[in-house]
Structures are given as C-alpha cells and as structure tokens.
C-alpha cells in the first residue's frame, strides 16, 4: 500500500481485475476465519477422540444431565483440589471410606462396610467391601486405601488438600484385601468422617510429582465411584458417564456434564432455554434470579437449608501461640458486656427479611439446624434477643455512659468500631448499613471497611469486628478446631488455621473432650456445650443461616434426592446422592438431554443458527458489492 502509487492514474486497473481482486480478498478473509476456527481445535488437550466410548451412549439416545457450574475446576487430582466444584466431582469419581445418610447426615458405609475401634481408642479397623471394582476392571481393595493414606503421610506434595485428615495418624496398613488398620497418635472421633477420596494404587504409584500431577492426562480416569470421568476441557466442561457396575446401583442418567458458566445470569438463561438441567448459583441464586424463575414452565426452584452460617466476629485480641500480642483490636471489645451489648442491638429478623429477602433462617447456635444432632439453641434466659434497652444498660455497666449522642469511655474517647466487610459480598454491605443505624442509636460509631481481600488485616489482627462465615461439614470438628489455642499463628500476622484468635482454656478442654469421645450422643452433648460457651462469649455472633437456592428443569429431571431428604439442597451435598439418584424425565416430555447439541431440537438450533449467521454475513457482503457494482455501472 504505497502512497505514491495510489495517485498514479496509469495504475488504474480495469473493472474485471478489481472484481477479481475483491473476490481474492474475500476468499482470503474466509480462509483466515476458517484457519482460525481450526486453530482452536488443538487448544483442547483431551480431544474427544480419546474417549469415544464416553460420548457414544449420549449420542445413541442416552440421557444426559447437564449442570451449570459457577467455578472452574482447579485440579482433578484429589491430592490438590481445593474448590468445592472439584471435591464434589471427586465424590462422584472415587469412593470414600464412609458416606453420610441423606436422611439425617449420620455416617453410613462407603468403601468400608464396617468399622470398630480398639479399647484404647488408638486403633481403628475398617472392613473394606469386596464388591467394588475400578473402572479398568481391577478390584478395589484395602491396599488402595492404605496407599492413599500413606502417600499423604509421607509426601508433603500429596498432603496439600487433605493433609489435616492424616495429621494424627501413626501408621496405616492393609493386612488383607478387606481389612484396613489405622493407628492413631491420640484418640480422634472424626475417624468415621474421613472425607478423603481413595485412589487406585496401580495408577497412582507411578505419579512422580504429586504437586504437579492434575489427573487430567489420560481419559477415562480410573475410579470406582458412581460415575467415571471421561472428558475434561479446562474452563469448559467435565463429562462423566454412569458406572453401570457401581455397587450401590447404577445412576439413572447415562451421562453427567458439568458446564462452566462464569456469569450466573447467563447460567439462569441457559436453564430457561433448557441448555442445562440445573443451576446452583454462586453460591446460591440471588433473590432476583429465584423470583424470575419461580412459576416458569418446567422449572422448579428448590430452596433448602444451607450449610453455612453468617456471623459477626469480635476481635478478642490477636496473639500468637506463644502469647505475643499484636494487631490493634479495640480494647473495649475485651469486655464481654460490650460484646454482648453489640449482639443485643442486632435485629436478626430484619436482616433475614430485608437483606436475605427471606432466603435464610435466623441465627442461633454456631452449627446450622441442618445438622440436627449438633444443632444447639440458647435457653430463654441465655438468649441475647434484639433488646436495645438491655444493650444500653450493659454499656452503662461496662463504663461507657452516653454523653450527648456518643458513648464515651473512661479515657474520654468515644466508642468507635471498625468492621471488616467483603467488598464482593453485597450482603455484608447491606448489613453494615443496618449495624451503623442500630449501633448509632446506642451511641456507638461504626466504620464499615470493605476490601476485596480481607485476609491481610484479618491475620494482622487489625480489626475490631468482621463479617465471618463458614461452610459446616456433617462432622463439626473443623469449625470448632479453628477457635482453639492450637490454631493460633506461630508468628505475628502470619496466616494460620485460627478464625478469630479465640484461645480459651475451657473451650479447648471441651474441644479435646469431644475429639476423644467415640459415643455419638455424648460427643454431641459436648459440642453443644462448646456452642453455648461460644454464644455467651460474644466472640461469634451468628446472624443467619443462608438457604441454598437452586433451580432445575422438571422436563429433564423427574425426581432428585435432596439432603436432608425431607427438604434439603441438591448441589454440594455430603455424598453423591443428588446426581446418583436423579431420574430422567420421560423421553416424550421434551428430551432429558441437557447438552445443547444432544437432542434433535438442539442440532436443529445449531443448523438454524449457523444458516442465519451465514445469511446475515452473506447478505451484507452481497449488498455491499451490489452497491459498488451499481455505482461502477452507472458511471461506465
């Protein structure tokens, strides 16, 4: 494109030449686009050709269940995966020693059929089932379980995800194919809640570096769960096919596809269209999304009790294990009366109604009511219900009388607090506004500090209050352990297992007691005592238990098990119950094939879509060239 040539009248070319050049240019662009299209093909390391047997059944009229996921998989290796999406998929691929009853969260057999502990509580013997086979035909035995635990105990790289489960293990062995023996350093009540996927030794013994192996090189991935993973494309989808030989019975759907939707409004659109069969939201559907789906044809919005608690934590004074104090938590919060006064001035019902718009349950004890055995509620005399007058009285008693509009301490300084809020969580911000108002009426100032990542000031102990929340497992050991002295950091400001720098002798004693108690009822009683202590302390003020709000298509899924069974959630259960139990809707009702290319209407859509796209583009090119040709003809 040299400027000089452009102005030379001699270089004017005849119309035929120009037309030819135009055609050449057009075909060049087309070729470029096509090449680009093909160039995308090698982007996927796991080409579908690797797993023809996986795709075939779906094509041959099999039933596919497609689930929209908000997260993408971080790793398919059970030794590395941290995200809920990945651990949920592991539940489907591998067996764990035990499972949880969908009815009541009680431990039931998994890979192990029975278990017993020795009299000294230090040796656990598990009977491993003999009717479980790996998907490559080899038998799954106690040796695979022993290998899995031993690997985590001896290789730090293999302990990244689940190392905490084996920290107290002394020795693990498999005297026979059906017997697994675990020796402990100290008694540990969580031995029936070891949520560790058991992997096949004959596959994993050859893995050299567990910190770099993501288990996504060879498909199908050998497993023994209700589904076998057959295909995975980063950031796009995970495909699993039903394990017809699964010992508990084969799943009813032939194929299960997890598809990544980074935008939840787009995922909701995909559900309305029928491209996916299920949407969980992130972490739940928003009230607006749920409202838009309610009453839609063929869509059911499912709301069940959540497994999370939403709390306000008060800084008890940050310190290290050695007792070194750090951080700048407000000294007034060291007084239990002040902490309780704050709690008394929070109207939890308003928060549930206005902020969660009814999609939550009012908070009480530390463990959500979903876990019936451990759920605890304060007695009437103990209860810190919304009572601003009592709060004012407590503050007067604590030495913070109201002078004018403000509460003032002995040092003459007004009582002003900061609260750490997650900038990404709209609930934090909304509740922050309510707190400002309620505590403002009491004469307490509040600054809501919203940050993208609160962990730095949090672990530096540089906060007064903070919005807090944890997802609770059927076994409550972990969420209790994060409030023990052992969880405090070694060095100041370093992140550690502790949640809120709580370190109390009484609480620690109770924690050790429940950990060593193998009788479920007695252990539950101790766990309730711990919650009672936590409630009175005012360190963790449970505001609400947000519900799980999710939706699915009833023309794809006829029935699906929730957990708890009576009225529970579907995504992120403890166990594989939902996807394993899902029954496809009858073929006549519009196709249970969730994938957009799976059924006839889907492929028709593809054809129509492509034809329309080509027509629009072609039309534009045609019009364009017609116009040009017309002017040229006019002039010539």
């Amino acid at each position, binding site marked *: 494109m040299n400027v*000089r040539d*452009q102005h030379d009248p001699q270089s004017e070319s005849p119309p035929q030449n120009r037309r030819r050049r135009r055609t050449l240019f057009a075909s060049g662009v087309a070729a*470029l686009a096509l090449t680009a299209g093909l160039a995308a093909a090698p982007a996927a390391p796991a080409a579908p050709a690797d797993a023809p047997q996986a795709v075939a059944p779906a094509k041959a009229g099999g039933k596919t269940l497609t689930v929209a996921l908000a997260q993408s998989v971080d790793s398919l290796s059970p030794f590395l995966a941290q995200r809920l999406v990945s651990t949920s998929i592991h539940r489907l691929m591998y067996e764990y020693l035990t499972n949880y009853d969908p009815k009541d969260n009680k431990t039931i057999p998994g890979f192990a059929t029975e278990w017993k502990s020795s009299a000294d509580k230090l040796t656990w013997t598990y009977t491993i089932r003999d009717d479980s086979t790996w998907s490559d035909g080899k038998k799954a035995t106690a040796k695979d379980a022993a290998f899995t635990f031993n690997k985590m105990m001896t290789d*730090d790289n293999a302990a990244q995800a689940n190392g905490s489960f084996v920290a107290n293990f002394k020795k693990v062995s498999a005297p026979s194919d059906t017997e697994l023996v675990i020796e402990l350093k100290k008694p540990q009540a969580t031995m029936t809640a070891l949520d560790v996927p058991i992997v096949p030794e004959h596959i994993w013994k050859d893995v050299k570096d567990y910190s770099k192996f993501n288990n996504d090189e060879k498909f199908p991935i050998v497993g023994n769960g209700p589904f076998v993973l057959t295909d995975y494309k980063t950031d796009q989808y995970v495909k699993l096919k039903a394990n017809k030989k699964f010992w508990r019975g084969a799943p009813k759907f032939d194929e299960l596809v997890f598809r990544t939707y980074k935008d939840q409004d787009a995922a909701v659109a*995909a559900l309305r269209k029928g491209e996916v069969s299920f949407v969980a939201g992130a972490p739940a559907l928003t009230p607006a999304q749920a409202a838009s789906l309610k009453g839609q044809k063929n869509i059911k919005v499912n709301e069940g009790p959540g497994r999370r608690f939403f709390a306000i934590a008060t800084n008890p004074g940050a310190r290290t294990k050695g007792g070194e104090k750090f951080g700048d938590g407000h000294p007034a919060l060291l007084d239990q009366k002040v902490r309780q006064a704050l709690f008394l001035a929070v109207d939890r019902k308003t928060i549930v109604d206005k902020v969660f718009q009814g999609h939550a349950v009012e908070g009480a004890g530390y463990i959500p009511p979903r876990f019936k055995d451990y759920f605890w509620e304060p007695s009437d005399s103990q209860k810190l219900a919304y009572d601003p007058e009592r709060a004012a009285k407590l503050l007067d008693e604590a030495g913070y009388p109201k002078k004018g509009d403000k509460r003032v301490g002995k040092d003459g300084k007004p009582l002003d607090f900061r609260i750490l809020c997650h900038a990404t969580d709209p609930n934090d911000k909304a509740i922050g506004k309510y707190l400002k108002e309620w505590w403002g009426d009491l004469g307490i100032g509040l600054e809501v500090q919203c940050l993208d990542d609160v962990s730095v000031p949090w672990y530096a102990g540089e906060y007064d209050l903070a919005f807090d929340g944890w997802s609770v497992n059927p076994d409550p050991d*972990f969420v209790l352990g994060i409030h023990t002295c052992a969880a405090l950091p070694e060095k100041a400001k370093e992140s550690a297992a502790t949640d809120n720098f709580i370190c109390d002798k009484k609480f620690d004693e109770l924690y050790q007691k429940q950990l060593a108690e193998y009788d479920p009822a007695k252990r539950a009683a101790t766990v309730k005592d711990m919650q009672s202590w936590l409630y009175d302390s005012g360190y963790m003020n449970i505001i609400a238990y947000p519900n799980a709000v999710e939706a699915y298509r009833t023309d794809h899924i006829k029935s699906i098990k929730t957990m708890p069974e009576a009225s529970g959630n579907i995504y992120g259960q403890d166990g594989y119950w939902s996807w394993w139990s899902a029954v496809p809707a009858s073929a006549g009702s519009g196709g249970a094939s969730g994938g957009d290319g799976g059924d006839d209407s889907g492929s028709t859509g593809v054809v129509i879509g492509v034809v329309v796209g080509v027509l629009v583009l072609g039309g534009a090119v045609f019009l364009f060239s017609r116009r040009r040709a017309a002017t040229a003809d006019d002039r010539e």
Partner: protein
Amino acid sequence: MTAESTPALVHSAEADGLADAGPSAGRGPRARNTKAYLRYAATKILGAAVSLFAVLVTSFFLFRLIPSDPVKHMTGGRPISSEQLENLRREFGLDQPMWQQFLDYIGDALTGDFGMSYQFHAPVMEKITAALPATLLLTGTAYILFTALGLWLGTRTAWKHGGKGDRFNSALALTLYSVPSFWLGLLLIIVFSVGVGPIPGLFPTGGLESGGETGFAYVVDVAHHMILPVITLVAVGYAQTLLVMRSSLLDEMGSDYLTTARAKGLRDDVVRRRHAVPNALLPTFTLMFVNLGHVVAGQILVETVFSWPGLGGLFYEALAGPDLPLVQALFFFWAAAVILANTLADVLYPLLDPRVGR
C-alpha cells in the same frame, strides 16, 4: 508512543513530489534513506525492548501492592491446618524474602519460565497457551470484522457527510460504543439465545463448543457459539474505527488533489477509493495496530458473560487470590502484545509514509 509518530496527513502534492524525486535522485540518497530507516527502526526496537523489561519489573510489584494472602485465599473455607499452609507457602516460594522472589522471577522469566499457577497447579505458560487460541479466535475474528465495518462505514459516512445515512450511522455507532459490553452481551443472550416472544432462541448461551463434535461439525459448532460474542465485540468496537476514518477522510475531502483528480475526469467512486481513502487511512492504520495489540488481551467482560475459555476469563479467575504467577504473566503478555504491535506500526510506518523516520 505511536501517537507521537502519527504523521499529519500526506497530501498528494507532496507525495507526488516525492515520487518524482525518487527515481531521478540516483543511488546516493536512496542508500542514505535506507540507512536512516534502519537507524530509525533500531531505535524503535530498542525502545520496545526497554519498555518490555520495565513491564516485566512492574508486573512483579504491581500485583503485590494488592493486600492479600494467596495461600489463605486459595484454601479458603476448607479444613486446612497451619502446617499445610506453611507447606503451601514454601512450595510457592512465598516464604522467601521479597528481593529473592523478585530475582527468581526475573531470572526465570528471562528463560521463558513464568512459574506454576497457585490455584491450577500447572505451569503458567501451559495455562496461557491453552487459553490463547480461544481468545485469538474470538477477538481476532471480531477485530477483522469491526475494522472492516468501521472502515467501510467511516468512508461512506464521510463521503456523504451531513446526510441521513451519516447522521444515523454516527449516532448508532456512538450509542453502541457507549454501551457496556457485558450488558449488551447479556441482552443478546436473553433475546437471541433464550428467545423472546416471536424471536426463537437460535444461539447457545455460552461456551466455545457443545462438546463431543469432531471434524467439520466441530468447526460449525464453534462458529455457532462464536456468533453472539463476536456480534457483541463488533457492535461495541467498530465505532472507534468509523469515527477516526470518517474524520480523516473529511479532512482530505477539501484537498486540491481531489479536485485535480476529478478534473482529470475520474469517476467519483475512483476519486474516493484510489485517491482520498488511501491518504485518510494513515491515522486509522495507527488505530488498527493499537487494536491489534488488544486482540491478545482478549475481552475480560465479554469472555466472562459468554463463558468463553480464553485469556480474559483466565485473568478474571487469576485476579481473585491473586494467583500471582498467572496474573504477572498475563499482565506481561498483554503489555508485550501492545508494545509489539505499536513497534510494528512504528517500523512499518515509514514504508507507508516516507516522511516518517527521516
């Protein structure tokens, strides 16, 4: 940097003069010109290399300014003991002093190793090369389309400026330019993917493929998935090219050389296409190269709305954490792409406009 070297418009009289001077001037000046050009190109390339290194250094510190604890974030909400946290920190090298981490980073980066992604446990380069084709396909196609559309409409509107078509097209382009891309994307999904009223849902709601297709069916499937995101990108992107092309062509239109061309008896069409447009293209050319640099960067918002498995979506995930090795590398590559595209424009410019670089 390119903006400074953008020349004023080349007027025909001068250009013709140069054309005349060229052949008669003999070998001496031409050799001189080549030498001058090489010196000019070398300066630009050296400048680019310095910029690249500066970006490499910046990428290390920039994301460490965000107060965060990657290890804690990564394991958030899971039962993790203090020992495990310590192990992870050691594995990622976060227990090293900052200067040591910096030296390691620069040293490794110079050999092409950008480390391991914290959250994906895979080499950063592997993650980037896996996501790059999807981004190139989407933004590359959109780039070709919006550049072509912008040039075409820009020429048309300028040539018939003040007319109905001009007013309509300029207003439409500006409106679309001001629309947030993620909002437009969602709107397109609701209307053309789910379907509203009589409009059927023709296109998929997201992703790059349905999965399981091979051969030509795969190409068709990917093309089907591309339509809505490409439309979004083109709609939001073509206004820039249109406006620059329109205004530079308008500047040309009063020029004497066009009157001369018409006086020679050339058709209006030829005057526009062979005389006015090539000169008006120069500023647009700069813009095209700037945009070309952004092709690699992908489109974070559009890729997220359409769940497109490209670099934009990867960056979105990497930033939460942050996954330091991944954000560092992506930041570096994007900056590098823009720098390279600009350098390319700088180096090519004198070939198009001989006044530059002498």
